[in-house]
């Protein structure tokens, strides 16, 4: 079976979503994976978009968070204050599914600025959007992001979404109620926070990927779980549905 590393990433991310969950979906890679999950093993996955679309069932991948398709297929369309205050904030949503520009070894993420000086950034990025509160309030957070040493850094330049801070116990100390990032899916493998330290640790390697590749694409000295396993290859059905979805969205 021929497939790209991006397809492997979308399939692996989709598999992480369980049927019946509610999922607050970011645009781009998370939205692709969530819609694939809904079409494969998780038909009762509830997709929530920050534009206020609850239970959206798009037939093609939206380009923006507020495409008409999301509203037309939603169970309900609510205002933006309502989606954040009534639905996200009380902790009703199972999983926040996010991308990032920069992610560090404790799962803190930064879509805001590159460079140490916020007032005089090297690169100004779009900013937070809904991410800080999604990362704080969902029961858990999955991040999906292509792996490179530029994106996976020892410490983010700016903490926009709080992951595990500087290690185990930081979330509890700050009173954050959700579990934070429990899974990071990349085009090379899967990472999960170490149960003792909360440091992101490689737990699964995608087929055909060498460990050396993962080390080279990670900006910190990546730890590997003792029981490192191999991600099962995408099935024919998963690939067919993913490709149909992509094609319908062109």
């Amino acid at each position, binding site marked *: 079976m021929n497939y790209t590393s991006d397809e492997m990433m979308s399939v692996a991310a989709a598999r992480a979503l369980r049927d019946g969950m509610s999922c607050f979906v970011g645009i781009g890679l998370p939205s692709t994976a969530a819609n694939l999950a809904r079409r494969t093993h998780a038909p009762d996955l509830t997709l929530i978009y920050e534009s206020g679309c609850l239970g959206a069932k798009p037939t093609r991948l939206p380009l923006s968070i507020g495409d008409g398709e999301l509203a037309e297929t939603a169970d309900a*369309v609510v205002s933006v204050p309502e989606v954040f205050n009534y639905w996200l904030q009380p902790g009703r949503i199972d999983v926040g599914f996010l991308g990032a520009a920069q992610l560090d070894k404790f799962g803190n993420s930064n879509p805001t600025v590159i460079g140490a000086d916020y007032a005089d950034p090297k690169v100004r990025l779009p900013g937070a959007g809904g991410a800080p509160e999604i990362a704080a309030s969902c029961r858990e957070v999955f991040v999906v992001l292509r792996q490179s040493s530029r994106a996976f850094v020892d410490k983010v330049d700016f903490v926009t979404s709080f992951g595990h801070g500087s290690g185990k116990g930081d979330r509890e100390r700050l009173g954050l109620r959700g579990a934070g990032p429990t899974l990071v899916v990349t085009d090379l493998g899967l990472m999960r926070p170490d149960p003792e330290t909360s440091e992101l640790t490689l737990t699964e390697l995608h087929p055909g990927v060498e460990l050396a590749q993962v080390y080279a694409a990670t900006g910190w000295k990546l730890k590997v779980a003792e029981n490192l396993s191999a991600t099962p290859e995408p099935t024919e059905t998963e690939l067919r549905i993913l490709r149909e979805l992509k094609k319908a969205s062109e």
Partner: protein
Amino acid sequence: MAKVLPLADGIAELVHDGDVVALEGFTHLIPVAAGHEIIRQGRKDLTLVRMTPDIVYDQMIGAGCARKLIFSWGGNPGVGSLHRFRDAVQHSWPVPLEIEEHSHAGMANRYVAGASGLPFAVLRGYTGTDLAKQTDTIKPITCPFTGEQLTAVPALNPDVTIVHAQRADRAGNVQLWGIAGVQKEAVLAAKCSLVTVEEIVDELEPKPGAVILPNWAVTAVAEVPFGAKPSYAAGYYERDNDAYQAWDAIGKDREEFGKWLAGIVGVKA
């Protein structure tokens, strides 16, 4: 009572140099034509407010209309960064741009407080983030009942809020439907408001889930067909995704942007 007037008169009357101006519309119903009219009339030193500054704010920033931006996500949805915004923040071009940066939840709550006549809003937000360190309008607050640590953000009360809607009747009652974003809150929070509409009709036919802004809550209404393009208006036209993609190349280059701007202002480049 809202008065019905042409867009150019509405901008001339309600938007002044130095004002705090909010244009809202969450991907859907973005008041783009009104933004272009602000550029055409050469407004300056504006404090622009918007949850999701996208290409119309990139255009206003590039045209030098803004001194400050209050926002939570400044990007080209589905495409990438805003290059005029980036140029202004990184190189002060064409003029320096001060920023006041929030999250969506924070901005939404600031409008809710403004619409509610309260000085601030309370939320569970920003905990552990660097945004709280950089932005003065994010402060911790203790719940007087439980002692819990929460976050306070001040009300937003723009001098003028501009939104786009599907339609209004001749008395100036406004009706909008589909993704309604934060427009109702932004209009009710503002000192005055201008609503551009796809069409003015004799009677507003009820629509499921529609937001109604009664004419006594709106200052002025202007009929501007296709006034949200290249965003969309549910029931009227779809989002022009190609235009968003095409903006990337125009916005990236000061010269290309200059040509675009000359076209909008109506002078030859």
